[in-house]
Every structure is written in C-alpha cells, then in structure tokens.
C-alpha cells in the first residue's frame, strides 16, 4: 500500500510499504477514506519528539471502512468508523476510570521503557506518534491496523460526509476536553492561546459549555478571522501586549480560565522564548513553554489553566509563585477520546457546531508531503489539511 512516512527533520514522503495484517484477535483492518495532518504531526516534522525512526508511518487522525476483522473484534466488515488517536484496551484500571489516554496496556512491553524513564510510568499507545507511544503505524495510509478495535472505533451512520466527523478522532474531543478542564461556569471569560485546529475547537467547545466570553490569541490573520467567526473576541499578539489587554478587557479581574492550545513550539520574541529556543536548538532539552508561562501569569486569582498543547520534555522558569499565590488549578493531558465520542457525535448530528470551517485544503495522499510543507510554512493559508488515500 501507499503511506506517508517519516525520514528525518522536514523529510516526509509517500512510499510503498507492506499492507498491515490482523495479528491479534481484537484487531481490525480499515481502508482509510480520510485522514488529516494534525498540528502535533508538525512536532514530528520538526523532529521535536524523540524516538522516531526512519520509515515510520505518520497520522493519528483517520477514518475509514472496516475491511477485515479479528475473531474478537466487535466491528463488522463494511462499517464506517472514526478511529480515536489514543489506543486503549478498555479493561485496565485507567480505562475503567475512563482515563483512556492513560491506558496501561496499549503500549507494547518492548516500547514502554523509554516513557517509563521519561515520565515515571509507561505512556499509552498512540497511532503514528513515535516509539515512545508504542511505535504503531499511523493512518496517513491506504490501510491501517486498529488494535483493540472493540473499544476505540466509533461507527458512523450513513449519509454524513467524512469531513463532518473526521475530527472526532482528535481535535474536536481535544478542544472539548480542554474546555472541560477549564471548568467553565456560566458567564466566565476564557482566554485561548493559539487559533489552530485545537484552539478553534476549544473556542467552539467553551461557548457550548457556557462561557460568556472567549478571547482568542494568535498572530495569523486568517486564523484570527476563523476564531472571530466562531464567536471569539481576538487579540493579535504582534499588535498588543496580551496580558495587559486581557486585564483591561476584564476590568482588572483577569480571565477565569486560560487555555494553552499551543504547546512546546511557541512562537514570539519574548526573552524567555528566545532563551528556550536556543536551548531547544542546542538539544539542552527544555520545551518552549512561553505560552504556559503566560497563561499562569494572565489567569485570574483562583482561576483555572487548561493545557491541551503538547509538551514532551522538561520545563523551567515556570512562574511557580504566581501559580501558588493565586491558587490556580492546572489540568492537562492527552485526550480521553473514547470517553467523549458518543456525546460529540450527537452534537455534530444535531448540527450544534460547524466541524468543517477550518479545512483549507483537501489533497490526495500522494500529495501529503506538500501538505506537510505548507501546513508548516504557510500556517495562515493552510489551516487544516485533509488527505484522501483512495
């Protein structure tokens, strides 16, 4: 089959690779009909995530049609499914608590050592996202093997196009959980850093969860426009001092909750960020956590900070005094996708939100490398890329 594979920093290409096979009883093989490039794929593209290996298939946002099932899969050949980017067994302590992205079993034993060293406990398996999270092949391919297919995939009713449900795989539940972690009370003001796909879904979700007001922060005009069209007030950080603006707009109280939808590759020219960038470039191992610092500083006393943005390494210079003295709550984590799927599918079917407005380009899989390059280099125009493998 054809698949998008990683060969080093800024080097991805579509190659011919072997077809995946059923290897375990709970497996299923799906024929991928749509797959998207995620902002977090750009961390792989930039070679910011350790333990990638030459030839790995990328992609963790994908859906398709069931092609083949193992003896213990509950799926049926021909069903349309969206596949959560988190692989979860459904039977461990963590899955029992619906903390699916903490699944204790989905990362193969021979791949778990690294995350156990880096994070203290082994990470769950994810599709197409380095060997730290299992070394599973991704879904930017013609076919994909789905482990524990009786737990993850959600069957989609006929008559609704792929583009409307594709983002159930990651960015919609990720934005939704980010809003949930912001513990929104009616009338709250929520500030969202980053108007990429996750930021946009966080804005939509905050408003659906009762926020009175969402203030979105970015510097790209097209992305700010999308945020505005979704009901957010916007701040361009190239034009204003963000913290002063937020204080002013909330008459001195500050946002009740702050969402970091940027993560480890924050842009901007604040002194802390330049120092972080130098350290990152010289492999000294710190993430660029400028946005996280800013959310902590900007958040009101007693407020909440929610972090859907991806971090992978070590942080420093966090304003720990502000965090403690203001009594903030921070919640974060990879998304427990499986927990949210039925409810979010209902919201889509009820027409409660537009899940397609962020898509800027639909390309055949063969042009995936071009999609990566442009999503990376021209983020203003390329806001979301969907790939069609067949």
């Amino acid at each position: 089959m054809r698949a998008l594979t990683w060969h080093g920093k800024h080097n991805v290409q579509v190659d011919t690779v072997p077809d995946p096979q059923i290897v375990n009883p709970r497996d299923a093989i799906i024929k991928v009909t749509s797959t998207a490039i995620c902002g977090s794929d750009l961390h792989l593209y930039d070679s910011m995530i350790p333990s990638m290996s030459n030839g790995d298939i990328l992609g963790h946002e994908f859906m398709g049609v069931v092609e083949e099932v193992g003896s213990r899969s509950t799926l049926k050949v021909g069903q349309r499914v969206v596949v959560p980017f988190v692989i979860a067994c459904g039977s461990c302590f963590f899955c029992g608590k619906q903390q699916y992205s903490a699944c204790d079993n989905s990362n193969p034993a021979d791949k778990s050592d690294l995350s156990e060293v880096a994070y203290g406990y082994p990470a769950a398996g994810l599709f197409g996202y380095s060997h730290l999270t299992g070394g599973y092949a991704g879904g930017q391919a013609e076919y994909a093997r789905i482990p524990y297919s009786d737990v993850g995939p959600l069957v989609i009713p006929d008559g609704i196009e792929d583009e409307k449900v594709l983002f159930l795989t990651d960015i919609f539940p990720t934005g939704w959980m980010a809003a949930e972690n912001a513990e929104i009370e009616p009338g709250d003001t929520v500030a969202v850093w980053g108007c990429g796909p996750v930021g946009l879904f966080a804005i939509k979700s905050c408003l659906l969860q009762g926020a009175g007001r969402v203030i979105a922060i970015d510097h790209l005009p097209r992305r700010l426009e999308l945020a505005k069209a979704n009901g957010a007030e916007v701040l361009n950080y190239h034009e204003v001092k963000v913290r002063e603006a937020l204080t002013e707009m909330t008459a001195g109280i500050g946002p009740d909750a702050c969402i970091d939808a940027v993560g480890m590759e924050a842009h901007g020219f604040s002194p802390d960020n330049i120092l972080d960038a130098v350290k990152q470039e010289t492999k000294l191992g710190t993430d660029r956590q400028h946005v996280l610092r800013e959310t902590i500083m900007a958040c009101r006393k007693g407020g909440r900070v929610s972090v859907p943005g991806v971090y992978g390494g070590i942080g420093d210079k966090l304003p720990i005094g502000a965090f403690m003295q203001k009594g903030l709550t921070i919640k974060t984590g990879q998304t427990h996708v499986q927990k949210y799927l039925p409810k979010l599918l209902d919201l889509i079917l009820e027409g409660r939100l537009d899940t397609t407005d962020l898509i800027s380009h639909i390309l055949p899989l063969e042009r995936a490398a071009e999609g990566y390059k442009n999503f990376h280099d021209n983020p203003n125009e390329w806001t979301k890329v969907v790939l069609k493998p067949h």
Partner: protein
Amino acid sequence: MSQTPPSTDADVHSAAFLDQDRVEGEHEAASVRAAMINRPREELYAYWRDLSNLPAFMENVKSVEALSQDRSTWTIAGPAGIDVELTSEITEDRPGEYIAWTATEESDVDHEGWIEFRDNAFGRGTEVRLFISYDPPAGVIGKLAAKVMQREPRIQARRDLRRFKQLMETGEIPTSQAPDAAPRADRHL
C-alpha cells in the same frame, strides 16, 4: 540493614528497593517488579502455575516441557543467539498466592524466581510481584551480551510482567512489530 525500626510502612526489605547497581546480591543480576492486574488472584495463579503458558508472555522462554508436577525443562534464548537449557524445580507452591522455582544443578544457568499474588485491599485487582535472578552463562561476557540483547533480568522482569498483565487483562499481547503489525518503509530508502 539498619537496626532502627523502619519509619515507613513500605516493605523496604524487599529487593525492589535496593539500588542494584551498588548492592551486590547473591546473584549477579536480579530484579523484582510489581504490577496491579485487574483480574482475580486465583485466575492469575492458575495461568502461571501451568508452566506451559510461560512462553506465551516470557520473551526469552522459547518452550517449556513438563517432566513432572514440579519439574520442567525450559529452553531459553540466551546471548548471541545461543539457546540455553535449564531444568526448573518448583520449591514452594502456595495455591492462589505464591510460586517459587529454582534451576537444578544440571542447568546451563543459575536461575531462580518467584511470583506472588495478593488481593489489593481497595478492590483494584491483584498485586503481582515477580522476582527473577540469574547468573548468566560465561560470567561477565555473558552479562554484557545479555545487556546488549536487552535480556537483563531487570528489563526482562519488567517486560515479562507487563506482557503477563496485558495478556490477562486484555486477552492478547499488544505489538507493533514490523511489518505485519506495523508496516514501515524500508530503512534504507
């Protein structure tokens, strides 16, 4: 060990708390690992007690042949692609709770192990602790070779116990082995 009474309730006498790079034990290489397994204690004990099941989740145990109720011959993938054989004898067996075994003198390697099953007091399943030790073949060179091949007891106990947990909790052992489980492009493209 210190003469003062322990100030913590943790079982600090367990080998799991020893810094194995510094403390020399009876064996050259040993490890204890613990895992919470969300299955009944009796079921876990019964699966392990049928030693013919071991190759299903122990990476380097290629086969187990029962000689009697308590004795069995194990073929183990050793360093540098050489198989080693050992005859294992169960030295203690408390049904549902504990199994200990040791390699008999005619074995190629000096090996012993035990596994313990305890109910978690708060309903989280069964606490399983696995101890594996062995003196590898050909002394230091064998240990170096085992290290290279990632078959050191510490890694082995960790991975084998994880696979046991995965098999018991989910009915299968997850894998991302290329090419079938996880296809990939040729490394030399």
